[in-house]
């Protein structure tokens, strides 16, 4: 029982085969030696990931004061590549983990980077309550309509009649409209873009991270290996064409009407952008002041620009 394996040198070297790291302007946001990533060729997560890196750069966010928390799944693996403090937690629990972290250190920017299954199926209860409380978090939800990591099973966003490995006859369940749900739960910023809209996505991430309160961004992304193949939707290029030809930008559409049916017009844009006191604002004004407690460290102020 008392084998002392720990005396051996660590099993991996931190650096080594990462020649070339640092040459690209965004490399400073990536952990040295962690690329290549695990995502399939043609996967849209890399595009959203890059939009996030660009948002970090454009928004001037401190890499020491930005924390990414992720759940489980393809999208959840993003945390491991980022040169920030990152936590790869349990399936569905990224939001409550991030809630604890944010409330303990209000000066940090906390971003949850995860997928539709993680955030809306197993984590569904957490996202609606974090939005209701208006905890100051940014949620970046990659919606690829299926569970990619486990091989393409149906999930809470799988469209009616779509084929996945667990819906071989077509999906018989109605999918969630994530935009409508985020709004109804109380989010103060709600936007949807596709993997084609990289600039808009980057802008939305900057806006969401600067927004005080619970912000939600849905990034509609192609999953060529899991979802597109089984539904004969073609390659990622075909899907990007589909996004180009069938999406329309709107800031006025009622979130109730933004549902994504199987072969749709995709409504993209900013659907909610309102001001509301955050959990900690209310905690401070409604509780701490009456309890006679000391003032807590200030949250990051709204910073536009």
């Amino acid at each position, binding site marked *: *029982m008392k084998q002392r394996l720990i005396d*051996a040198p*660590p*099993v991996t070297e931190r650096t080594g085969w990462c020649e070339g790291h640092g040459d690209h302007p965004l490399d400073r946001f990536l952990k040295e030696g962690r690329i290549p990533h695990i995502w399939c060729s043609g996967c849209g997560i890399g595009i959203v990931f890059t939009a996030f890196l660009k948002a970090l750069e454009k928004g001037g966010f401190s890499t*020491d004061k930005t924390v990414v928390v992720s759940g489980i799944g393809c999208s959840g693996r993003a945390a491991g590549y980022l040169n920030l403090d990152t936590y*790869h*937690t349990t399936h569905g629990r990224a939001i409550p983990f991030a809630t*604890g972290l944010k409330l*303990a250190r209000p000066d940090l920017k906390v971003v949850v980077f995860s997928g539709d299954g993680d955030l809306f199926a197993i984590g569904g209860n957490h996202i609606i*309550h974090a939005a209701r409380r208006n905890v100051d978090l940014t949620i970046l939800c990659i919606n690829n309509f299926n569970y990619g990591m486990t091989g393409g099973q149906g999930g809470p966003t799988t469209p009616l009649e779509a084929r996945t490995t667990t819906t071989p006859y077509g999906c018989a369940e109605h999918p969630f409209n994530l935009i409508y749900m985020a709004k109804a739960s109380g989010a103060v910023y709600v936007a949807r873009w596709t993997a084609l809209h990289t600039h808009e996505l980057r802008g939305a991430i900057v806006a969401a991270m600067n927004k005080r309160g619970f912000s939600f961004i849905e990034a509609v992304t192609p999953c060529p290996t899991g979802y597109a193949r089984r539904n004969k939707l073609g390659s990622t290029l075909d899907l990007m064409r589909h996004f180009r030809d069938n999406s329309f930008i709107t800031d006025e559409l009622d979130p109730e009407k933004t549902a994504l049916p199987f072969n749709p017009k995709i409504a993209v844009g900013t659907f909610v952008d309102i001001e509301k006191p955050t959990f900690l604002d209310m905690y401070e004004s409604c509780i701490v002041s009456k309890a006679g407690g000391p003032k807590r460290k200030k949250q990051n102020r709204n910073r536009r620009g």
Partner: protein
Amino acid sequence: MTSKAVLTGTHFMSGDDACAEGGMAAGCSFFAGYPITPATEVAERMARRLPQVGGVYIQMEDELASMAAIIGASSAGSRAMTATSGPGFSLMMENIGLAAMLEVPVVLVNIMRGGPSTGLPTLVGQQDVMQARWGSHGDYEIIALSPSSPQESFLLTVDAFNLADHFRVPVMILSDEIVGHMTEKVVIPKKEEIKIVPRSKLKSGSRDFIPYYPDRNDIPPMVLAGEGFHLHATGLTHDEYGYPLITPEAQERLVQRLVRKIRDHTAEIIRTEELYMEDAEVIVISYGCSARTSQEVVEIARERGMKVGLLRLITLWPFAESRIRELASLKRVKAFVVAEINCGQMVYEVERCAGGKAETVLAGFMGGRIFTPEELFCIIEEVTG
């Protein structure tokens, strides 16, 4: 010197409240929980007390979230705790594994009630003892302490935070409905008399660090969020850098260390209390509320000239293995009687350690009430013949 966090003085206080005050005295600044009988009073007291000292109380949507939130808060540097009972304890199992894997110190109070399922919300049980040790999947170690009084609930909660921070493990207070709802004298010492063991932290400033590289006690100094280290923590099997590494070698290195950091230090963790042990031939082993009745029974037996002693387990996990082996190997010790409110849980640990050298008898009671001294006495009488 009065402090808002430490209510120095003599109080008439319940075990639940004493757990909350123990947390306050230990510097707990974050509590996430969900209402559940018979542990709700811990949350209620924290909701009142934490805002007074600049801490955060949050009522989460369920116990899955409560456990995740305290791990998040502790990762950011707060001393964090939650409190629950059986059904909530089951939900917390998932993230107890996460805390063990990420080596994040947290304190979890379980005021045990009768189960299974919804069971006996308002009545006592001691049926979560094995779940506490083995409830989350995979191999890991935790520490569990069992108070027998409100005073001890206070003291052990302080100890729980120190043990959690020192060993970087989840530490549980396995109290029960009787101790939790019992109101007794609780003396809270002066702030400066309360020992606080801080976390061993990596000094900030150094970029050249290995976040999970253990010290000579197999415990890595902790890296917190927002200190500029750019830590990656994952529930996947990982190497010393914290990066996922899905190989048998990485699994062996990591899991063996997670287990060894507790198993190699049992001597400094385990605490027991002994009574009339010098010449005892029959030893009653008990914990929590059961140990109170057991003590009464041992006193009665002694009055009648029977050579009966009491071993009270204060630390349930890691188990007081070596002490029980030692006692079993004494010629005079004929039997262990394990008194607990379940169908037999700790009795199997005792039996294993006794190794056939002394008889092991279960005095198991089904819960809903504490057993009477007569009930336990009859079992002891049978054993002594």
